[in-house]
């Protein structure tokens, strides 16, 4: 009898955990990608170059994101990879920047700031209001 209830409760717990897992894995996020100046903790990172952007291997937008512009992408799940390639005069310049990042399941919309990311700041990602 006890065993049965332990198993049943266990199963319910497993299902709840599965639910939470699915919630996190299936949560859709809209990432607004800003190629704009940003000030974090008094330090200002300024946008200098246009970038071609890939998120999880898929290109965002048809062409490079110019300085001062914003683009957006929809993704599902918590962890993603962004690849950035600086573009000047329609030619790639310098190394591709690859960065892994995680989005909290609580945030539906987030803003990803390219200058901050390029500058190596950890705070390149912020929740959108």
């Amino acid at each position: 009898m006890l065993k049965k209830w332990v198993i049943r409760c266990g199963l319910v717990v497993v299902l709840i955990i599965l639910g939470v897992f699915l919630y996190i894995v299936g949560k859709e996020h809209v990432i607004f990608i800003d190629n704009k100046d940003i000030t974090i903790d008094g330090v200002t990172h300024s946008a200098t170059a246009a970038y071609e952007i890939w998120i999880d291997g898929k290109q965002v937008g048809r062409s490079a994101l110019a300085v001062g512009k914003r683009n957006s992408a929809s993704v599902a799940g918590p962890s993603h990879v962004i690849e950035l390639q600086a573009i000047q005069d329609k030619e790639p310049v310098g190394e591709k920047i690859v960065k892994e990042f995680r989005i909290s399941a609580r945030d539906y919309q987030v803003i990803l700031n390219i200058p901050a990311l390029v500058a190596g700041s950890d705070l390149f990602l912020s929740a959108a209001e």
Partner: protein
Amino acid sequence: MSETYLLRMENISKDFYGNKVLENVNLNVKPGEIVGLVGENGAGKSTLMNILFGSETIHETGGFSGKIIFDGQERMFTSSFDALEAGIGMVHQEFVLIPGFTATENIMLNREITRKNLLTEVFGERMNTLDWPKMRSRALQAIETLEVNLNPDMLVKDMPVGHRQFTEIAREIDRETTKLLILDEPTAVLTETEAKVVLNIIKKLSQKGIAILFITHRLQEILDVCDTIVVLRDGKIQKILKPMETNAQEIAQYMVGRELSEQKSSVWEEREFHEVILQVNDLWVDMPGERVNGVSFEVYKGEIFGIGGLTGQGKLGIANGVMGLYPSEGQVTIRGQALKLNSPKDALNAGLAFVSEDRRGIGLLLDQPLSWNIAFTTMQVKEQFIKKLLGGLIKWRDDEAIAKLARDYIKKLSIKCVDENQLVCELSGGNQQKVCLAKAFAMNPEILFVSEPTRGIDVGAKKLVLDTLRQYNEEYGVTIVMTSSELEELRSICDRIAIVNEGRIAGILPPTAPAADFGLLMLGKTDVKEGVESAS
């Protein structure tokens, strides 16, 4: 000594609402013993078995007094499942089988052999998968114990009746714990050969040490297989006999009881009748549970003709068949005119009226007032109590005339009620029966069929009903055909009594014939010589 008995029932008494049905019954059964239980309807056999088997109705009606010692322990079964668990099996009169299932499935019903699987752990035992091969072999084993030829894979609905009975018995003995098996008329629906097989099974089971309680109305079977014969009458054990020391005559005697002299005083003097008013020739009636298999008899004008017999033998089917309530075939003539069968309307128009044994089912409109109940048939059949308006175009119900009629009968039959507008369902059984009689009398019938007029009503009302019938017969010369399970009742009022057995008339006796003769006829011994008119 007590440990040699498997079952001891001590001082068992039981009453239904003050009505004693069992009184200080003592019954002892040894392992492997075959005990035959005989008695008239209402003698208390079924109640005794229901008490033993823990039937719910017993407990709903206030339980019983006395002790049951089974297998050395005092037991009190509150449900049939308790009894099953303790090792008592019961084969019911009606088959408790699933027609669309195979013999195996039925034998293993709700005792299926199962295997655990993953889902069992979560959702419990009921998610176990059935182990068909094991179930089949278990069923086969039970069938082999019976030494009958029964296909475990055959659907019950495709089986002959006998095989269904075997399946039922196999189910009971499959329980390894079964020590006592109750068989309630196991041979009633079987052919002779099938019945023989069942009797053989009974003997074999008893050799294996299983005690058998065997109820039957076929005396010969009792004499053939039983070790002990217990005769019940009026809720008491009348006699315990050994088959070698007795005969059918004696059993019947004990069963039916009282010699005539005891109550002969109430029977009137013999009357002579000459004119045949009703002639029934080879009547077959398909009434479930009361099948009639070709009966022939004549009823004389002005007499009271009784039809008796044990329950289920078909006595009730005769009146129902003549009245057109159940499908029937054969010839019925009234005053020399052929009656169209299967048409209640023609029967009523021919001057017949019927007081049904099924008072609440057929006899009454329970949720309608008294007055309606009394007048309805007459109104519909004879168009009395109707005012014709617009030249007969509108047949207006004459409520005043109906009320007057009802008041008349309330007075005449002293029906206890508030007034004629009271709903019939609020009346007591006896008064309901009087309403049924009033309904029939209102028709002014030439022949009145009355079935079980005193069933379920108290003693005082019983006498009143019978007196009313007799008075009606004497005053108006109405011919009465009365069907009843109570022989004494028939003997107290009828001029002649026909006894029905297995759907046929076993014999017709005058009420003065000895009780034992009636008893033998009821049990299917048609070779009673004394006073028997031609049976067919």
